[in-house]
Each structure stands twice: as structure tokens, then as C-alpha cells.
């Protein structure tokens, strides 16, 4: 086995919490041949990133390797001295992080960070490395490859930064690159561009890679082989096509099945019905920058309206206008046919009660110092005026509704709950006001697929039971398919297309909707290749979006 590059045997990792060491990875084996791309998938907390870093002989603070071996090209990374490891890192093993925006040093220009590796490792002189960097930028299809390196990270977009980071990883022509969720933070149209660039360059230099992600469709495009992790254990490993067509383990099958949730279609809205919330000709601006242009759409009782678009398209700003946090500069928001004051401070308590929100990051939306009971009781008391036993009974009923045992969770703190449970508390808090209308702002995007599906099912059940109207902000079209009745597509602060879901997923589309739909990765390993051929190299992702 002379072509084995990385050989991990029986690797065990532990993480410290509350003064005790708990297992994160329980004895995983991994081999990687030169030039091979291995996909590593699993939910958050499965230990993917920890394993990825351990493959570089690196552990974060509060994590330790308790057993096993990591051998890179015959060098044992766990026993090697710090100096030997430093000689390998960046030079022969490189890393591409999830958030390029956070992983580039804000104080230095891109090219300075790019040449740091080659110069410090003595691979290339600075001038040569700069030229090489520009070539790499060009290969990764970055705009203005000659000059983009001389910008600071904040002057470059997220998708471009991610490619610049891939270029930086390539700077010393390493044998192995660890990609840690490199496209998770990107919009679908940008993601395609980055995926295509990464795949090309890895192929071109015959670099081996470990590609970590929770997105099955993405890994299907990138990897030769897939390894599935669950809570620190390997579930199964197989080559990509076998894994997709014939997974052997129950867990893998359940991952594959997640995307099957879809609600039945509802009868079309009666034309004469008064919408619960109506957004009419709304313009909005942050300071002088105008961000919404003439946005209009209606939301009817018992319906879910999905508002889709990329980051910066004005989805969340529209939500802020409806809640009154950002008074529109023109247009009206009406509730049940009556116009509401634009500023939330001028709205009556009852008007405020009717519009509630569930947030993307349940972590930051719940006060960490308050118990679950207090969090839910607060709106119960504020809006409904209940106190004492009545209040407690109402909170218990709400916890029942979100399928959490009141006696068990009432006194817990948010930090003691999982991500999905926290999001359920967010739902209960919104329900506590007994609203008619709830804005769900990317409520599932921070969750794993299985957990997210649970949340979507719960929301659907609550809607059926309570007749709620949802405005569902998302950039994930799979979620739209699962839960929406109507869809509003936004781009650059304008509504591009709106209508019932059935129509939206049927051609003909507005070209932008078409681009969005076709950019969602599918579970077919040939999807990316086919799509690129269809669109032509110069017309993918970003570039295509810009032309509209």
C-alpha cells in the first residue's frame, strides 16, 4: 500500500465539559489514498470537524486524543514534535474552514495571507508565490485575479473569500486538504461556483481531500468515497455511487429519507377572502440605502407563505417591516384588512400580540439566564395578563403543544437543551401570545436535517390545529417544498415571482427562480457535472445571477 497517504487507526477523542472528559470519537479508522476525495458526513455533534482536525494532528482547546494513531505519509502525527508538525501543516496538509470571512485575518490583505505559507515554509520566494497566487485565483475563476489579492477580506464577498481560501490552501501544493463545510454558509447559486472550483483544482493537482459536510447532495458531487458518522462512531463507508443507491445501515437510510416530507396541497384561496397580513407597495431603507422596492404580497389564514431568496434579497427586511421594527418609507402593512401603524411603538398591545416571531438562532434568541418556564411565562403574563396558577397551567399546556414534558423542562436553562429543543421553546414562546400570524425566520437552517424535519412537522401540526398563518423565510428550497402553500421569490429587494407552490415548481419560471431551483444540489453524483455542461463554464452561479 505505497499510495496510502493518510492512515488513521482506532482514533479516540475526548472533549472536556464540567471537569470530566467525554468521548467525542470512539475509535474510528480512516484511510485515504493519494488523490482520493473522502466525504465525511453526519449531523452536528457527530464529530466530523474534530476528526477532520485530528487528521492534521490538531485538536482544539478542551479536546484531547486519548487513543489511536494518525499516520500521514509514514509520519506519526500524534508523536511527532510540534516543530515537525508545523513543518507539515500548511505545506503538505492544508485546511479550508467553514467561514472564510472569519478565518481570514481582517488585518492583512489576501495575498499577504496567501504567500505567508510558501514563504515561511521556504517553498517559494514572495514574488513567485504572489504570481502563483494570481494564477490560482484565475484557476478558481475569481474576478480580477491580478488585483483581488490586494484587497482586505472585508472588501471581498463570501463566495469569493471561500475560493481565495481554497487558493491559499493550494499555495504550497499540499498532498492533503481538509475541507470543513466550505459551502455551508453560502447561497445556493454561489455554492455551485465554489463546488465546481474546488472539484476542478483538486482534480488538477491530484490532491487528496477530506470533504466534511452535513449536506448529502453536496458530498455526492465531491467525493469518491463517503464515510457516515453518528455520535462519534462510524456507521458505514462505501464509494459514493454504492452509498447513494444502496445504503446498508438504517441510519444512513433515514438520512436519505429526510427529504421526503411534504404536506398535501390545500385548496386555492378564495379570491374574496381578506388576507391575514397584507404587504402593499412597501419600500424600506437602512439610512440612505434603499433595500426594498415596491414589495407586495398577501398571506391568508391557515396558509404558509414561503419567502425565498439569497442573503441580501430583502427577506428579513420585509419581516422587520411587518413587525414594525423597521417602519417602511412607503406603502402599508395591514392586518385583517386594517392598516397597522408602521412603527411598532404606535401599535396597540393587541396588534403586537397578533404578530410573533421565531428566530433562526434559538441559541441567541433565548435569554440564557432564564429558565424555560420563565421564558414562556413572560408573554403569557404580558399579553394575556395571566398570573399564578393560571399562568403555570398555560405554560404547561404550551410545553405539551411542542411535545416537551412540562415537569421535566419547566426549570431547565436553555443551555441544557439541544438545538432542536431550543427551537421548540422559541415556537412555544411565539404561541404563548396566541397570535394569528407567525414569522419564521430561517428557523430550521441552523439544525440538522432530521431535527429540522421534526420542527417542520410540528409547525405543520400546530397550523392545522390552531389555524395559524406562517410567513416562512428560507433560502432552502427543500424546506419550501416540504411546508409552503404559496411562494414569494425575492431578489435585490424586489418580488420576482409569487404564486401557489404547485405553480412555482412547474416551468415556465422567471429566469431567476429557474436559476435558484436548478442550483439546489441533487443526490445524483453526476448532477454538478451535467449542470455545468448545461450552463456552460462561464455562466454558472454568481455570474449567471449577475446577468439578471
Amino acid at each position, binding site marked *: 500500500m505505497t499510495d496510502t497517504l493518510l492512515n488513521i487507526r482506532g482514533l479516540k477523542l475526548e472533549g472536556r465539559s464540567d471537569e470530566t472528559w467525554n468521548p467525542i470519537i470512539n475509535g474510528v479508522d480512516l484511510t485515504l489514498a493519494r488523490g482520493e476525495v473522502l466525504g465525511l458526513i453526519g449531523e452536528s455533534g457527530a464529530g466530523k470537524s474534530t476528526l477532520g482536525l485530528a487528521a*492534521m494532528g*490538531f485538536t482544539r*482547546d478542551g479536546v484531547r486524543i486519548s487513543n489511536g494513531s494518525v499516520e500521514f505519509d509514514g509520519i506519526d502525527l500524534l508523536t511527532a514534535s510540534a516543530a515537525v508538525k508545523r513543518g*507539515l501543516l500548511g505545506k503538505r496538509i492544508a485546511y479550508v474552514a467553514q467561514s472564510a470571512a472569519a478565518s481570514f485575518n*481582517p488585518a492583512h490583505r489576501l495575498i499577504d495571507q496567501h504567500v505567508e505559507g510558501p514563504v*515561511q515554509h521556504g517553498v517559494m520566494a514572495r514574488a513567485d508565490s504572489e504570481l502563483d497566487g494570481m494564477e490560482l485565483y484565475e484557476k478558481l475563476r475569481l474576478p480580477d485575479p491580478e488585483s483581488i489579492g490586494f484587497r482586505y477580506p472585508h472588501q471581498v464577498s463570501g463566495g469569493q473569500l471561500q475560493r481565495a481560501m481554497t487558493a491559499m490552501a493550494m499555495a504550497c501544493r499540499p498532498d492533503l486538504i481538509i475541507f470543513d463545510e466550505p459551502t455551508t454558509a453560502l447561497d445556493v447559486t454561489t455554492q455551485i461556483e465554489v463546488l465546481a472550483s474546488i472539484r476542478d483544482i483538486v482534480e488538477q493537482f491530484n490532491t487528496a481531500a477530506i470533504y466534511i459536510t452535513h449536506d448529502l447532495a453536496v458530498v455526492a458531487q465531491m467525493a469518491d468515497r463517503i464515510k457516515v458518522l453518528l455520535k462519534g462512531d462510524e456507521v458505514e463507508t462505501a464509494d459514493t455511487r454504492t452509498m447513494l443507491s444502496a445504503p446498508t445501515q438504517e441510519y444512513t437510510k433515514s438520512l436519505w429519507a429526510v427529504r421526503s416530507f411534504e404536506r398535501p396541497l390545500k385548496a386555492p384561496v378564495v379570491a374574496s377572502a381578506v388576507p391575514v397580513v397584507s404587504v402593499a407597495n412597501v419600500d424600506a431603507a437602512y439610512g440612505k440605502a434603499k433595500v426594498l422596492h415596491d414589495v407586495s404580497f398577501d398571506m391568508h389564514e391557515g396558509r404558509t407563505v414561503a419567502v425565498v431568496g439569497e442573503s441580501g434579497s430583502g427577506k428579513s427586511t420585509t419581516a422587520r417591516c411587518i413587525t414594525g421594527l423597521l417602519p417602511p418609507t412607503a406603502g402599508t402593512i395591514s392586518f385583517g384588512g386594517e392598516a397597522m401603524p408602521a412603527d411598532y411603538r404606535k401599535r396597540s398591545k393587541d396588534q403586537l400580540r397578533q404578530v410573533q416571531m421565531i428566530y433562526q438562532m434559538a441559541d441567541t434568541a433565548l435569554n440564557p439566564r432564564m429558565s424555560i418556564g420563565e421564558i414562556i411565562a413572560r408573554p403569557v403574563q404580558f399579553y394575556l395578563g395571566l398570573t399564578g396558577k393560571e399562568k403555570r397551567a398555560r405554560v404547561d399546556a404550551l410545553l405539551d403543544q411542542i411535545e416537551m414534558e412540562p415537569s421535566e423542562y419547566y426549570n431547565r436553562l436553555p443551555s441544557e437543551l439541544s438545538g432542536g429543543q431550543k427551537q421548540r421553546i422559541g415556537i412555544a414562546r411565539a404561541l404563548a401570545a396566541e397570535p394569528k400570524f407567525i414569522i419564521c425566520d430561517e428557523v430550521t437552517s441552523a439544525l440538522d436535517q432530521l431535527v429540522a424535519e421534526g420542527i417542520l412537522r410540528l409547525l405543520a401540526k400546530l397550523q392545522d390545529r390552531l389555524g395559524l398563518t406562517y410567513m416562512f423565510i428560507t433560502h432552502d428550497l427543500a424546506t419550501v417544498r416540504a411546508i409552503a402553500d404559496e411562494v414569494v421569490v425575492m431578489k435585490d429587494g424586489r418580488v420576482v415571482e409569487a404564486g401557489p407552490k404547485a405553480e412555482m415548481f412547474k416551468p415556465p419560471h422567471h429566469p431567476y427562480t429557474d436559476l435558484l431551483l436548478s442550483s439546489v444540489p441533487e443526490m445524483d453524483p453526476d448532477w454538478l457535472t451535467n449542470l455545468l455542461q448545461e450552463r456552460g463554464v462561464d455562466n454558472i452561479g454568481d455570474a449567471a445571477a449577475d446577468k439578471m
Partner: protein
Amino acid sequence: MALGLLTLLIVSIVIFVAVNLLPGDFAELILGQGATPEAVAKIREDLGLDQSLVSRYFGWLGGMLTGDLGSSFAQLNFQTNLGGAGGVTVAEQIAPRFANTMFLATVTAIIAVPIAVTLGILAALYRNTVFDRAANILTLSSISSPEFFMAYVLILFLAVLNPILPSLSNIYEGMAFSDRLEKTLLPALTLTLVVTAHMMRMTRAAIINLLASPYIEMARLKGMSPLRVIVKHALPNALAPIINVIALNLAYLITGVVVVEVVFVYPGIGQLFVDSVKIRDIPVVQACCLIFAAAYILLNLTADILSILSNPRLRHPK
């Protein structure tokens, strides 16, 4: 800038009112117990002390704006009693003292700032090691001891037991620079001990605060050495808080060094200030206060500007 000037104006009012609230005035103090009311009234009239507070304030403010700091009460009387002409203006009296204080502050800053920042960097690099703890304990104990105590300890070791440096810092005009520097070293060292801890701890904290950032992890994963990670990747992003603490400490060096000046008999502005308060020489006291306030405001303003310059987001907008 406008804010700085406004602050200075408000400070000038506060100074003026506060100084005039001091019990007793120059006339009473200079004439002593047996003063006749007529004599006190005469001196007050001469000095303009009989006018209302408001008119005196505007007179003083007007003088300040035109660069006239007024005349020192004490010197004025001396001179006229001895038959001399005019008297000594506040500006003449303060100028050499202020220059001395600036000299001491500069010497101290040149010693203390590099030491503090270097120690801070090293403490961050070797955090939680013996070196880190030792540096912390040493600087903390030096900041916790009274200044005069540190001063006498230094005198004991560097002037008495090992006579390397002079214990008296009686510098005067026309002294050679090297002599001046030699005489200033001991008070400067004392002040270094006082201000280093604060700056060092802030440098260490600001750097350690950043070590959990993804870009620091990235630098480590690029195989960069620990020292390079800290100096090249963490320090540039930690400059803003460090600059602010340095500015505060430099301001302290100008305004808060009375005790050290007294111990070493250093003819700085602090001593002049205390002496003037004792005899209610109000023009001098007010001018000193205003200089102190201006020093604080100016240094903080400089720190704000440098902080902005250290932020690439503000230096290179999109």
C-alpha cells in the same frame, strides 16, 4: 475634535468653580492672622477678586483663548514688594516646569511602553506558565505598592547601596542633556514600575481574547510558529484596546506624578500645582488644571484616531 473642545470648555467651568470653592483666599492667607479688613479688601481689589464669579470666569476664559494665562498672585506680590517691575506671568512660571514634566513623561514612556507591550506579548505566548504568573505577580505588586514606597526602594538599591544613580533629581535650565537624563532616570524607573502593569495586562488580555478566533486557528493550521501567530496575526487586531490603555497611562504620567516629583525633588508641574494650591495662587492652579485636562483629552483623541487607523475596515472602506 469638536467634542474634545466642548469637553475642554465644560472642564474649564468645573475647574473654575471648584477652585473658587476652596476655603480662604490669597489675600487672607498672605496677610495672616492680624490682617485688617481694609488691607484684605485692598489686595482683593488689586487682584480683581472682588468681582463676580461669572465676570471673573469670562475674563479668565478670554485670556486663555488669547494665550494669556494671567499673572501669578504670589509672584506678582513678591515683585511689587521688592520694587521690581510687572511680575511673572503664569505662562512664564509654568512653561519650564511643564517642559520638565514632559521630559520625565517622555523618558518614562520610552522605557515603559516597549517593556509593557513586550511583556504582554510574551505573557500571552507563554500563558499559564511560570513566566506568565511571575510577570503578573511582579507587575501587580509594583502597581499595588504606594508610589513613594517604590521610589524609596529604588533609591535604597540604586542610589544608596549601589550608588549608580543620583537620588535627587534637581534639574535646572541649561543642564547638559546627558546629566539631565541621568538625573531623570530614577523617577522615570519608579513611574515605569507604576504604569507597566496596566499596559502589560491589557496587551496580554487583548491578545488572549483573540486566540480563539477562527483566523488564529487558521494561522496555526498553516504551520506558523506560536510567536508569529501572536505578533503577526493577533497583535494587529488587538491594537485598539492596547492603544487606549497606553494613552490613559501617558495621561497619568503628565497629570498624576506629584508624589514621585516630591520624593525626588523633581521640578515638575505637579509640585508647582501643589504649592500653588497651598497658597491659593488661583491663576496658576487653574492653568495647571486646564493643562492636565487638555493633556487627557488630547491623548485620548490621539488614541481614538490611532485606533481607527489600526482598523482596516475603516482605513479601506468597501
